[in-house]
């Protein structure tokens, strides 16, 4: 168990190094930040001086090494555009994205699993079939379109909900939250639905097909034959077994919720790290881009590590080293 965790952590570190390398090397092709930073009246000397100041005259491996060395210490450099430390900007922006991702992840998982179980148990019911048909919309429409449609309906036509921004936020220490004010909560509704809809329908369809498979298993039939009631059979025996494969996919999906937040944040002008990243790309703000990508990959890797550990918690067959069976 411990060796397994250690192995996974080492693997994760390796993945992060590679991601960092790939991301960092790509930035050499996105454009020259100096162009944007200096105005029309620049001289060659200005350019060379700024280049040396920013360390951009160094060879690539040296730049990468410097970046890593500083990153491990929590220093991601200074934003070319804002002239402030990237770490500071990220800390300021991260709560917005994390709150959005957490709310839409929660919605996706709870509604997805709930509807999945419902449609599996009532396999041929009218309502279940309706839900399945409607869920196709969630799978097939692109995120930005859903966002725009929601804005049109609820903000423009009905005027119920705000179409952009976070609303009022409350600061608790360095964390800013929109969950404690009415306008903050209202502002959260549309973006979190937009962001979570795809994952929700995906989880729902996955849970449904897995659950149907599990309901056919002998141990479910045997549980019925012992006279246990439907609730115990469906939720204690069937659902837990359903979740084993669902967890993997859900874990990956949660990662992409954070990554896909870029689009939703752009549509709703949500002041999170995704919007920050889009702005950074337009300005070739390499430190911000690099930090963002590293942050996303840390989250992806972290979530996957948690998923693997969850396996251990749920499935006892993985906990024993092939012993037992005697």
């Amino acid at each position, binding site marked *: 168990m411990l060796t397994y965790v250690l192995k996974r952590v080492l693997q994760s570190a390796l993945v992060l190094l590679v991601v960092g390398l790939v991301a960092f090397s790509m930035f050499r092709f996105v454009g020259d930040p100096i162009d944007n930073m200096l105005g029309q009246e620049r001289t060659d000397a200005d350019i060379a001086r700024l280049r040396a100041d920013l360390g951009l005259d160094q060879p690539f491996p040296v730049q990468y090494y410097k970046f890593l060395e500083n990153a491990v210490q929590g220093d991601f450099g200074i934003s070319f555009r804002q002239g402030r430390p990237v770490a500071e900007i990220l800390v300021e922006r991260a709560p917005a994205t994390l709150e959005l991702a957490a709310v839409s992840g929660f919605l996706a998982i709870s509604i997805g699993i709930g509807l999945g179980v419902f449609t599996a148990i009532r396999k041929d019911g009218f309502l279940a079939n309706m839900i399945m048909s409607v869920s196709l919309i969630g799978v097939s429409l692109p995120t930005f379109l859903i966002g725009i449609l929601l804005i049109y309906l609820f903000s423009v036509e009905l005027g119920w909900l705000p179409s952009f921004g976070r609303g009022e936020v409350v600061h608790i220490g360095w964390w800013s939250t929109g969950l404690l004010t009415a306008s903050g909560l209202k502002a959260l509704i549309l973006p979190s639905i937009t962001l979570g809809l795809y994952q929700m329908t995906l989880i729902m369809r996955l849970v449904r097909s897995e659950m149907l498979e599990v309901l056919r298993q002998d141990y479910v039939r045997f549980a019925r034959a012992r006279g246990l009631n439907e609730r115990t059979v469906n939720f204690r025996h069937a659902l837990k077994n359903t979740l084993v494969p669902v967890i993997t996919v859900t874990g990956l999906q949660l990662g992409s919720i954070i990554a896909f937040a870029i689009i939703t944040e752009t549509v709703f002008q949500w002041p999170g790290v995704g919007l920050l990243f889009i702005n950074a790309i337009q300005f070739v703000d390499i430190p911000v881009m690099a930090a963002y990508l590293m942050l996303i990959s840390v989250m992806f890797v972290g979530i996957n590590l948690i998923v693997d550990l969850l396996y251990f918690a749920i499935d006892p067959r993985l906990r024993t080293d*092939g012993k*037992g069976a005697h």
Partner: protein
Amino acid sequence: MSDTVLDIEGLSVHFPTRRKLFVAVNKANLAVEPGEIHGLVGESGAGKSTIGAAVMGLLERPGHIAEGTVSFKGEHISGRDADGMRALRGAKISMIFQDPLTSLNPLLTVEQQLVETIQFHLKLSDADSLTRAVALLDRVGIPDPSERIKQYPHQFSGGMRQRVVIALALCSEPDVIIADEPTTALDVSIQAQILELIKELARERQTGVILITHDMGVIADTTDKVTVMYQGKVVESGTTAQVLGAPTHEYTKSLIAAVPRPTLKVHRFPQLSYGGRQIAFHIDDLARNWERPEPSKSGTLLKVEGLTKTFLARNAIIPSRRKYFTAADKVSFDIREGEVFGIVGESGSGKSTVARMIATLYQTNGGKIFFDDEEITQLKTAKDLESYRRQIQMIFQDPFSSLNPRMRVDEIIAEPVKHHKLLEGDAIQHRVDELLERVGLGSDAGRKYPHEFSGGQRQRISIARALATQPRFLICDEPTSALDVSIQAQILNILKDLQEHLGLTMLFISHDLPVVRQMCDRVGVMRQGQMVEVADTETLFAAPKEAYTRELLSLMPKLEGLSTEGLEDEIV
């Protein structure tokens, strides 16, 4: 009828489908008394399990009871609604399923599953439930029950899991237990123990048991009464001795005639004549076109010496901490040209491992294989092995997973011919058609896909595929274990014919000793990866040398009371 605990009268179960009505059970009668073990026997699709499901109120939709009644202690229960049935299920009538590996929830401990069921039915406190659960485990013969109850199902062996399943079925002292093929998935020795346990429980608690099985040996050794089913109808019913010893219905006769006997060796199995299932097998034509190679000079076609195979059981970074499992341990034997050599043993004894090494599907970890006096284990390149591989072909146990479902049957059979470049152009299709014709499927079968065939027909396709390269040596790994007894008789007849007319040499692997006795000239007994004893079949059955062989033979159902009608002409 006052002492009848379960009475099924004129029960019909219908499954309406879009095209037509499928009658799974047709006016079946069956009565069980307390303490009686009532066997329900028949081939797959006969409706045995459907009766069990109907009694439990667990019919899969759209199946329903169309007519007839099920009475429990004189009270009609077939008309009850879902809640009414649930009050009976598990409480008064319990069920045991076939596969102990899948009938327990893998994510809950044995304790959680037992306590949950006990509390549901008996409404005991946590502590009392646990005490009762431990007592139940003790009763079904699980050693150290208070410790083992905390474990998960995967920590129990197959036989132990079936005991847990039985304990679960006993949670609330049921009056009737329906056991649906409770020992089919188990080894003979475990099967004997489980059947003994069921017998004890029936006697001790006066529980009525319906034992659903396709295995005549189980019926003969365990049941008091037996009901024979064929295509949804009860064809014969009576005491076990009477039905098996002097069957009156033609179907029962043909069924009993197809059962391989441990004590009698027959030349061919009488073909089931009932229900028009006679299938012609034209061996003579096939034999005429068969290219026979020169027989091997020494008379020994295959010889293995010290064959060893180990599998990694636990991986570790440090080599010394890795654990290995020895599946085959210095196995040696030889097979003469034209003989059928059998390997018997329980699951995990290494039978299939040896076969796969001979078929070069597994790399060996030691030992030598000689084929036609040439050392195969010395051949290094795939090209050198090609000729050997053409000459040995394999027939697998599971006729469902051993055929590619996305390939047409003629493609399946043509594939080995094309691979070895034996024929070209139209000649390939010609050989495929011929083989299909010869195994009794007809050349039209080539244009269908495997799922359109039954298990027995698929096994014929496997045989046709194995014969396509005109091999000298056929490896049959449990070729009939997944088949009904009448289909088994057909397939065994085909294999016997092939061996006789084509001069094939065969390695025949089985856990079923009566089958081995019918098929093999010599037998090797394997246990835990080692070859325990090798002897002529008749010698082995008459005078086994090793203690383990004697033990295996003693566990074999004797079937002495079985009628020999129809077998007279075939007894060797």
